[in-house]
């Protein structure tokens, strides 16, 4: 009984965390490679590297405050941050999927995949207006 009482606060806390987080929807990563970031900052550390078309759970939580252009996400067991511009509602046609065997044959190592993801973080992207 004593043990149960000791465990009670943890059980309550776990329940609060799980009920507070709400899955907004499933989105897809739309760049060649990218990172799930530790914080909502482009240069922050990477939790994991993902590739184009990878499904991403976008979560809403009152306990996590994020800038407008970032999303709080879950990919496998990792919960982190991805820029909203890298997510789309429709599954994109990825280069890797389109040219599967060609891409596999390139045999890119982990460091290269990491850098490819960083590349998209480091780009300053822009587009001129429609006339």
């Amino acid at each position: 009984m004593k043990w149960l009482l000791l465990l009670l606060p943890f059980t309550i806390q776990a329940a609060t965390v799980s009920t507070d987080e709400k899955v907004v929807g499933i989105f897809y990563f739309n760049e060649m490679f990218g990172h799930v970031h530790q914080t909502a900052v482009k240069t922050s550390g990477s939790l994991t590297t993902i590739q184009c078309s990878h499904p991403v759970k976008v979560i809403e939580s009152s306990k996590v405050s994020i800038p407008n252009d970032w999303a709080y996400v879950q990919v496998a067991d990792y919960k982190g941050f991805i820029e909203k511009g890298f997510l789309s509602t429709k599954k994109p046609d990825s280069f890797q999927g389109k040219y599967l065997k060609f891409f596999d044959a390139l045999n890119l190592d982990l460091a290269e995949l990491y850098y490819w993801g960083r590349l998209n973080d480091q780009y300053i992207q822009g587009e001129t207006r429609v006339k």
Partner: protein
Amino acid sequence: MINISRAKLALSSFLITSSLFAQTGKLQEEKELEVVNFNTIKQVLEKDGLSESARRKAKEVKILKKEQSKIEEKRFFYPVEQDLWGFVSEFWLVKNAQLLNWDFTKPDYGLDTSFSNLMEKLGFYQKKYKILLLNTPSLVRAALPGNNGEGIFLLSVPFIRTMDLSKLEISLLLFEDFLRLEEGYLKKSVETPKVKKLAGTSFQGKKPDLSFITELSKNYSERLMVKGFTFQQQFEITKKMDGFLKSNPELWNAYFQLLGKIDRFVKSNNQYKDYSKLYPSPEMQQKWLSPPEKVL
């Protein structure tokens, strides 16, 4: 008694058989044979529409198999040229990440806003671009072909910092690179016959030949860091810049002065001594822009 009843039974069975024979005109054996006769089964199936459904199913399977083999075949394709260039450019950036040193923390210089403003002022709308800042003087500037017609602009932070360039001056440099990209100078100079031959073709049943990717990557490095652009190409670009900026004297003057600034800088700074070889040359560009001297 028994004999009489047997005779009656035989007579009645004969009568039944003959009456049946009279009704259908077919023997039982004949009927049994009909069941074994596949043609009749076929007719029955046709009557039920089962044969038609089986034919439809077979057709569907054939189409599905064809589609499946098409998808399978597609997986063995080399990228088409349209998809290839953006991929190769990024592949080159990834392979040279340490040398180009683009993975670093930097402030937001607001270059996207100033470059977009300049482009729009000059009438270039709906143009997508990516700017990648390099933390190295090894490569001062370049524009690489990206996906779907967008450009990837590389710019050395040590260069713009040491020269103390304004946002407008940086945007003018980017615009010059944009025109180079539009002319396709880099593509034309790095492309190999193998690219034309392999792009968009299948390597199913063969080992993929990736040597053209390595060659392209090597050619990128050579063109952007060793050989650079020709005098003819530079002349054409300078004349284009002249044409676009002429209607806006403020921009034209800023560009003319920028060339002078770069000329003085690269001549006095040993770290950038190769700049004029790669982009020949700011001094010549200024001359090409200057009105011809009148001979009295």
